[in-house]
């Protein structure tokens, strides 16, 4: 399904209003201080509104939206710094299952992922955090007639609260996608302390852990789901960039020093003008990448990699400038500037760094 511009505007309004009332800054701060790291009540509402299931086919209880709508929705969640497993369960796990050929698993898992009653997450990289085929640190073996997993998967988003783990593991002849449930006692899960407290992740250690094979899988399929997650990440980055920028400009207009609004100082004005180019460029990059992916046309990988580093760099730059432009208040914990800067730092590394994606971009360009 491809939505019209009007439908998209309406969708945006719904989410925006929901988040404005239910994911205010104080709510974000309260949620990030909880152990689970998300608000189950708000999560349920996101399920009801079809947001968690946005990428899931209607036949499995989802909304069946595509990359363009995904990017748009994530702009709003990123703007609010929403604390939730949307990226892990609704995006990464959902899209990995959506491209599965195992209809039984789809029918069993997707409806409860879509309505939010089950949280799923993907375990695919070891401690090195590569998010590439080389980064897979779990091996699957047939022990007698049962499948066992061994090894480490780290940076598993919202691992501690997840019900279902989709584990990408090496096999004797390639890769396989496996299902492990939280009830299985034979793996260790250690929550990781996150510098960005609005996020959660965990490290899993498998030791002869029983698992179900969903299907043999090739890296390209995993990559495709990661690509969708990169669109989501770009959306959240862009939303956060825009919000912290707007907040900073507003502050510049109302904060007086030396008898003038600080936004009347030309150095601040020129800095803001330069940052606006970064803000707008990252919006263009994220939406272009989503559009290319939605239309499955040429240059979709090129566009994706461009967005992957341009949106990371812009968020890092703009949120760092925001702290400085706020002066003393920006150095306090109570001001949200550092929350955006923390998110910017986190997203610049999660799923791959800007320099990694600059290199991928250049390769796509044939260099």
């Amino acid at each position, binding site marked *: 399904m491809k939505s019209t*511009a009007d439908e998209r505007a309406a969708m945006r309004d719904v989410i925006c209003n929901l988040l404005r009332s239910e994911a205010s800054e104080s709510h974000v701060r309260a949620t990030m201080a909880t152990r689970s790291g998300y608000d189950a009540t708000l999560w349920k509402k996101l399920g009801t509104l079809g947001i968690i299931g946005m990428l899931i086919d209607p036949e499995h209880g989802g909304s069946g939206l595509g990359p363009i709508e995904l990017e748009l929705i994530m702009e709003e969640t990123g703007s609010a710094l929403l604390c939730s497993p949307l990226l892990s369960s609704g995006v990464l796990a959902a899209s990995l299952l959506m491209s599965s050929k195992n209809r039984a698993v789809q029918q069993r898992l997707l409806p409860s992922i879509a309505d939010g009653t089950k949280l799923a997450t993907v375990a695919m990289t070891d401690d090195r955090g590569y998010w590439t085929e080389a980064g897979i640190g779990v091996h699957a073996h047939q022990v007698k007639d049962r499948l066992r997993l061994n090894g480490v998967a780290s940076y598993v988003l919202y691992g501690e609260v997840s019900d279902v783990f989709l584990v990408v593991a090496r096999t004797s002849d390639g890769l396989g996608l496996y299902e492990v449930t939280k009830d299985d006692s034979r793996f260790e899960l250690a929550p990781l302390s996150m510098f960005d407290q609005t996020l959660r992740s965990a490290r899993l250690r498998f030791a002869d852990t029983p698992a179900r094979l969903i299907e043999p899988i090739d890296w390209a399929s995993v990559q495709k789901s990661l690509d969708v997650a990169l669109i989501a990440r770009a959306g959240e980055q862009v939303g956060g960039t825009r919000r912290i920028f707007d907040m900073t*400009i507003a502050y*510049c*207009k109302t904060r007086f020093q030396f008898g*003038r*609004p600080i*936004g*009347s100082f*030309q150095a*601040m*004005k*020129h800095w*803001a*003008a*330069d940052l*606006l*180019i970064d803000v*707008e*460029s990252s*919006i*263009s*990059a994220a*939406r*272009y990448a989503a559009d290319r992916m939605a239309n499955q046309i040429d240059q979709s990988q090129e566009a994706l990699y*461009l967005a992957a*580093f*341009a949106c990371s760099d812009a968020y890092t730059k703009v949120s760092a400038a925001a702290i400085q432009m706020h002066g003393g208040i920006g150095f306090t914990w109570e001001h949200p500037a550092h929350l955006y800067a923390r998110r910017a730092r986190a997203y610049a590394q999660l799923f791959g760094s800007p*320099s990694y994606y*600059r*290199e991928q*971009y*250049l390769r796509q*360009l*044939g*260099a």
Partner: protein
Amino acid sequence: MMMRDDAEDDTAALRKEVRAWLEANWDGSLPPDQDRWNLSPATKAWLVKVFEAGWAVPTWPADWYGRGMTEQRADLIAEEFHQVGAPGARQDRSNFIVRTIYHHADPGLKRKMIPALLKREKGICLLYSEPSAGSDLAGIRTRADIGGTGYLINGQKVWTSGAAFADYALLLARTDWDATKHAGLTIFLFPMRQAGVEVKPLRQITDENHFNEVFLTNARVEATQILGGLNNGWRVLQAALAYERTALGDQSRAARHSAISDDLIGLAQQYGRLSDNALRQELAGVIALGKLHALNGARARELRDNNEPSPLVSLGKLAMSRVLHEEARIRTSIVGVETLLCGPDHPLADDANFLAFNAYFTSIGGGTDQIQRNIISERILGLPREPDPDRNIPFRQTRSG
């Protein structure tokens, strides 16, 4: 309101008409012109045809050489001409000087000037900037003093292109020295072919001479040549500059620049630098800058078509300046030691050196990067204006330097 299907039929009909006309009249090419100030007879003849068919200014009414069309339909005409490479259509957008005259001159003057300018029988240039008024155009000091039936002009203009070939100029001069700086200015449609107008070429840092200095000594212009009324020059100028920005925004890069390959990857390969990871990272960053600039442009057009407000247009020039400087920087780093050299034996070094300096054409010319940042922060972000102590005092009391 026109129904959608009718509108589509109408579009198709217009395209058909333009195509048929081009089919019947366009030879497929024109002999090359020396430059835009010296057109071949064939080009001029073609422009007459376009003018007479009403394609030159399609949005203007029929009694003003046009066809009374909407902007959207006029764009179709431009597209069809562009497709076959034929010049001269849609000058109501691209020819910003004529557009200024159309909107601000008296009917008599319009009748006299517009056809000649559209057909390029006459050439026209701009006399705005002065050595003492660069970024601060309202600070110009060229005087227009009443004398006889018109005005005597004295002063010095700079950054004028085509002054040596032009028959006329849009001249910005000060007509009231007791008014505030913006209030005492007038725009004249000024005749260039007279004693008292001396044109000297101005050498740029790129060692080119695209511009001139123009010295005006007791030169004359009639009062009937005023555009938009006496002492209303600032407002006319703002309109003219806006038309110019639109027109330039549509154009691609300058001539010499466009002849230089944009392929930085190819250049790096040629110099055996593609295995250098440091260069690769920079290369990706610089290419991305250019691409992001293009994406912003595309999004700006999309938003404009949907009548949504967007700051993107105003960012263009500043963003482009950064693209050009950064591209030049990495080009220099790829070509390396050979940039010590120049001349035809070292074409790639020549390109790198030229582009490094020509980037200032964009970052200084037509409003410096600094002025662009003022405009963006004030008009788009709504931050307070810079104080201008001269703004509200009689101009003769202001300081200059």
